């Protein structure tokens, strides 16, 4: 759906300092070369299958389907990937690409810590240096992931500027990249930032929808009626949607983090509360005030706590091809507990946003209809925070 280079409808583009322009051009040229290189694709596919545990399962959630009494529900189990989330798909792709480009050092931002852990993992595997920027607030919320990254050999740098969350970690990683380009690849974790990142990250995550399509065809002999995924920047969602975009019968539903509700300020629901702007290298929707100052967003989920959304999602929203719905903290926590009790699967609090919307949608659908929910990550990292949310104090 790209109309011109790096654009999705009116969104996307390359709004970055001149210092970085040759770096993104070099990246684009390298990617254009390697994406069609059989050896590169073979190597990546081997990493996916033999290191990251792909293909991930497409699991029929029988108890949940029966309990909700409507559509058949399948779960795409990205939580079963190595490192526990979909993030590894993109990271293995980018790390391999960076290595081919002769880079020896990866830098990354992280919110919940999943992308940081995945980047540190790939760096360890490929013998690269790794530095991860993480909002100081998030280093407290996700202390275990900070330890994991250090264990894997990465330096974790707490970011204290601004709101000390994901957007500040992205800004800091961009600043770092500006100061050291020659040996460093910025391994961006979502379908965000300047071209070519939204396209590269989408292509590496598109394996999710490619597998869903094949797996469901084998089990049910047909397409799903709806695909539901959580959206922060939107990488697991675009990965889940991508191979269904040209199948108009498939509803594509992105679940935004509404935090304490979209009527207040404590929210991260970009499409539902934001307006078009230009930030972090791209034109898209952003939570911002009337003067374009980026809003301090809030969600219980550190991974969805971002004031923008990937440009391809912005375009899918504009065209009406995908729907973006708000899900509150409370609904997500309920769904976190529900999936744990009903299916014995503890989802990441991010993914629980998608489960929450499926709980509302499934009963309104027929028994012969099919919903696929992407469980983008596992919820072990969230247990202490959810316990606290429920008023229980436990030690990690």
């Amino acid at each position, binding site marked *: 759906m790209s109309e011109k280079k790096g654009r999705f409808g009116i969104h996307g583009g390359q709004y970055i300092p001149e210092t970085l322009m040759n770096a993104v051009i070099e990246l684009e040229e390298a990617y254009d070369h390697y994406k069609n290189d059989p050896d590169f694709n073979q190597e990546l596919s081997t990493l996916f299958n033999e290191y990251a545990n792909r293909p991930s399962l497409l699991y029929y959630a029988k108890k949940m389907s029966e309990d909700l009494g409507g559509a058949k529900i399948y779960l795409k189990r990205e939580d079963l990937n190595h490192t526990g989330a979909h993030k590894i798909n993109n990271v293995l792709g980018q790390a391999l690409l960076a290595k081919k480009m002769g880079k020896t050092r990866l830098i990354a931002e992280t919110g919940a810590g999943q992308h940081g852990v995945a980047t540190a993992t790939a760096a360890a595997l490929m013998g690269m240096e790794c530095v991860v920027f993480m909002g100081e607030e998030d280093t407290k919320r996700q202390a275990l992931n900070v330890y994991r990254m250090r264990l894997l050999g990465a330096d974790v740098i707490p970011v204290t500027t601004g709101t000390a969350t994901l957007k500040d970690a992205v800004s800091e990683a961009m600043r770092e990249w500006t100061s050291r380009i020659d040996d460093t690849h910025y391994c961006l974790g979502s379908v965000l930032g300047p071209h070519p990142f939204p396209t590269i990250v989408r292509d590496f995550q598109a394996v999710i929808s490619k597998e869903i399509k094949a797996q469901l065809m084998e089990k049910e002999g047909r397409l799903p009626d709806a695909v539901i995924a959580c959206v922060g920047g939107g990488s697991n969602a675009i990965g889940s949607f991508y191979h269904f975009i040209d199948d108009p019968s498939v509803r594509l539903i992105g679940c935004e983090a509404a935090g304490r509700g979209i009527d207040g300020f404590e929210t991260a629901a970009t499409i539902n509360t934001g307006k078009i702007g230009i930030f972090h290298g791209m034109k898209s929707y*952003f939570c911002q005030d009337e003067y374009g*100052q*980026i809003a301090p967003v809030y969600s219980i989920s550190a991974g969805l706590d971002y004031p923008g959304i990937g440009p391809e999602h912005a375009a899918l929203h504009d065209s009406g091809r995908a729907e973006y719905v708000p899900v509150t903290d409370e609904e997500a926590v309920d769904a976190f507990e529900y999936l744990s009790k009903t299916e014995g699967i503890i989802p990441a609090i991010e993914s629980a946003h998608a489960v929450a919307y499926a709980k509302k949608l499934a009963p309104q659908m027929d028994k012969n209809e099919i919903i696929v929910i992407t469980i983008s990550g596992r919820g072990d990292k969230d247990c202490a925070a959810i316990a606290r949310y429920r008023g229980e104090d436990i030690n990690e």
Partner: protein
Amino acid sequence: MSRISEAFNGKKVFIPFITCGDPDLKTTEECVLQMVKNGAGIVELGIPFSDPTAEGPVIQEANLRALSGGITTDDVFDMVRSLRKKTDVPLVFMTYVNVVFSYGTKKFLENCRDVGMDGLILPDLPYEEKEEFAPACREQGIDLISLIAPTSNERIARIAGDAEGFLYIVSSLGVTGVRSEITTDLGAMVSLVRENTDIPCAIGFGISTPKQAHDMSQISDGAIIGSAIVRLVAAHGRDAAPFVGEYVKEITDAINAD
């Protein structure tokens, strides 16, 4: 030829920067007048932005101080209007694309002309995206200042060829902030610029001492200093103007010395 280009008219120009509204707009206005009195040839006015990704910690903090004081883009326009009654020094805004875009690009530039601005620097607007903002700038007679960086290489010819006002040469990799040493081969960059345009060029990023300012203006047409001034404002708050004036004088003298 624009007022900005004229400011260079055969002499070396010092371009000091200040973040508007840090700690308040009255202080900013006093500082700007001190800058002009002490020899600034052009003044760069930063409109605060919540997430200034090209700035180092000093200017980041100034942006946040200004915003936490409630400064808006409209307040900055009002200050310029008042400033224009007292000085005709060329004034250039430095801000981020979202500040202009969200205000409405056309309306922003109309206001720029109304209040008497001369130029606009957007550090997150590279050559490839320039045409989104350039027509509105042209229409209002505002120079859209282009930047070139140590990594620009073969891009320099194209960027310089289209430049207006002056060319902003970024001295070093990384973000704004004081540096003890500048290692880029700036002489080579300037030569490439000269081959492609008659527009003057000034060097910024990392400059703070009179000697650095002197050296930079010897190889180009002028020097730009931001963080060192913002640091003075941070240290002296509402009493900053005389300190800024003194510093600007020191730098101007160094730039004009042979």
